[in-house]
């Protein structure tokens, strides 16, 4: 039988070259979705193959990799992907954000500010911000090419007319470098401001949909809104029960069968680091409400 032999970080050099070319093009046109010939990977489409292909294409033997899902290093899919790179690339891995050079993430941006020596790789399920307003790819490509973004504002208008607020709470569309409208991946809108003028390079990979896009460092990224309904970041009403932070995104944990709840940092490394530095939250017992 033909036993397979794998290259560093799994992908063959030809494929890596192809992906890097797509990445370069994406960086040259911030926010524009570059089509690429996504490969079948050993994990299913929809489970991070785009992010994995981007990471595999840029990873070098002296990189340090961190992988998070929902902000945590310990969720099952983050572990699975981290082990994949440990096995196929043998790179150093870490849970400490500031020690990593490449961070692959699903649905969150780390709370710790990133620096210019880091790359953030996002896993993207549906790259097209118009997808649920216009299902046809031929039409959405034309809208981006011609800068026709009226339909997006129609959606926001409808939200305000119906709910009194813009009803998008995650995957909130942004305008990149004042030109392309982009889907930031299903990160909560809470994280949108972190993309603006970020010191790190941000790369976005969608394996199943076969698109790569990028935000170069220190690029202007603004969330779509109306002048009289400006983008508001979501505020929690109370600090993290474990470390006391009142600036981080919190997970709601149901603690007993009487509906008792507590709120803790979604970014596990951030929370642990704060606690190691001596910060302490109020613990379970206090009354929490969400705005």
């Amino acid at each position, binding site marked *: 039988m033909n036993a397979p032999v794998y290259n560093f970080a799994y992908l063959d050099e030809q494929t890596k070259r192809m992906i890097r070319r797509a990445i370069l093009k994406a960086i040259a046109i911030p926010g524009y979705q570059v089509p690429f010939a996504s490969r079948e990977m050993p994990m299913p489409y929809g489970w991070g193959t785009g992010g994995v292909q981007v990471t595999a294409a840029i990873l070098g033997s002296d990189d340090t990799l961190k992988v998070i899902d929902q902000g945590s290093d310990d969720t099952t899919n983050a572990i699975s992907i981290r082990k994949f790179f440990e096995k196929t690339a043998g790179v150093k891995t870490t849970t400490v954000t500031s020690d990593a050079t490449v961070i692959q993430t699903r649905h969150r941006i780390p709370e710790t500010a990133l620096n210019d020596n880091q790359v953030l790789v996002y896993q993207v399920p549906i790259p097209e911000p118009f997808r649920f307003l216009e299902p046809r790819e031929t039409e959405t490509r034309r809208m981006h090419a011609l800068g*026709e*973004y*009226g*339909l997006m*504002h*129609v959606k926001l*208008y409808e939200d305000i*007319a*119906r709910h009194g607020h813009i009803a998008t709470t995650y995957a909130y569309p942004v305008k990149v470098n004042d030109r392309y409208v982009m889907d930031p991946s299903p990160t909560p809108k809470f994280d949108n401001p972190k993309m603006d003028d970020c010191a790190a390079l941000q790369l976005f990979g969608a394996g199943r949909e076969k698109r790569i896009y990028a935000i170069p460092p220190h690029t202007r990224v603004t969330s779509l809104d*109306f002048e009289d309904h400006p983008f508001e970041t979501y505020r929690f009403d109370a600090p993290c029960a474990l470390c006391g932070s009142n600036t981080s995104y919190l997970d709601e944990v149901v603690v007993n069968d009487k509906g008792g709840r507590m709120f803790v940092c979604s970014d596990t490394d951030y929370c642990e680091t704060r606690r190691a530095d001596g910060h302490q939250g109020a613990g379970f017992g206090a009354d929490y409400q969400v705005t």
Partner: protein
Amino acid sequence: MRDDDQPLLICEGLSKSYGRQLACQNISFQLYPGEVLAIVGESGSGKSTLLQMLSTQLAPSKGRVSYRMRDGVTRDLAMLGEAERRFLFRTDWGYVHQDPAMGLRMAVSAGANVGERLMAVGWGHYGRIRDTSTSWLERVEISTDRIDDAPKTYSGGMRQRLQIARNLVTKPRLVFMDEPTGGLDVSVQARLLDLVRGLVNELGLAVIIVTHDLAVARLLSHRVMVMKGGEVIETGLTDQVLDDPHEPYTQLLVSSILPA
């Protein structure tokens, strides 16, 4: 500031053939600002094909259509880039479809339908967009408390009036209309025509309206072109052509209007 001496739209030798079949033959005319031109004929006369070519939705086999843009320069429409053409379609032109569902977003609120063109040209203030939509609904006689309802819930006449509002919000200078009263009750038609006539006068719109109904032509248009078999067989001032038709076919058309 309108230069009424210059034509707004110039059509020269426009033809369309499908294989050996000639849908339109050698059509030429000029349209001036504020002028309403009716193209009448029975089905198969080529009038819809002509409208499609004039509004650049169909490429002609021969001939040319030129339009005087807002900056005063007259351009050959076939030479416009796609971005320019789409922009023109959304701002300086209107197109009213026979079936309003073709010209509206049926599942989106009336307010958003009217406001979409404004948002497409960069209006970013929800309140102002909504106020503009509201005032347009009033102008087309739709009750403003229906602003948040989708046209799915509207009657046929209301949908058509909404389509008109959606087209006029960017103050276009030229509006194409394809059988706008088709499929509506006679009384609803009358109300719609009255509204259109009022708006055309008030806004100084140039209109090219395709219709098989001579009564519509008489009510709305200054000039009329009668088409048969892809050719224009008679053209002139509406009242003159309808009161004193020269061509036998025109006479036949006129005489077949049943008195109301």
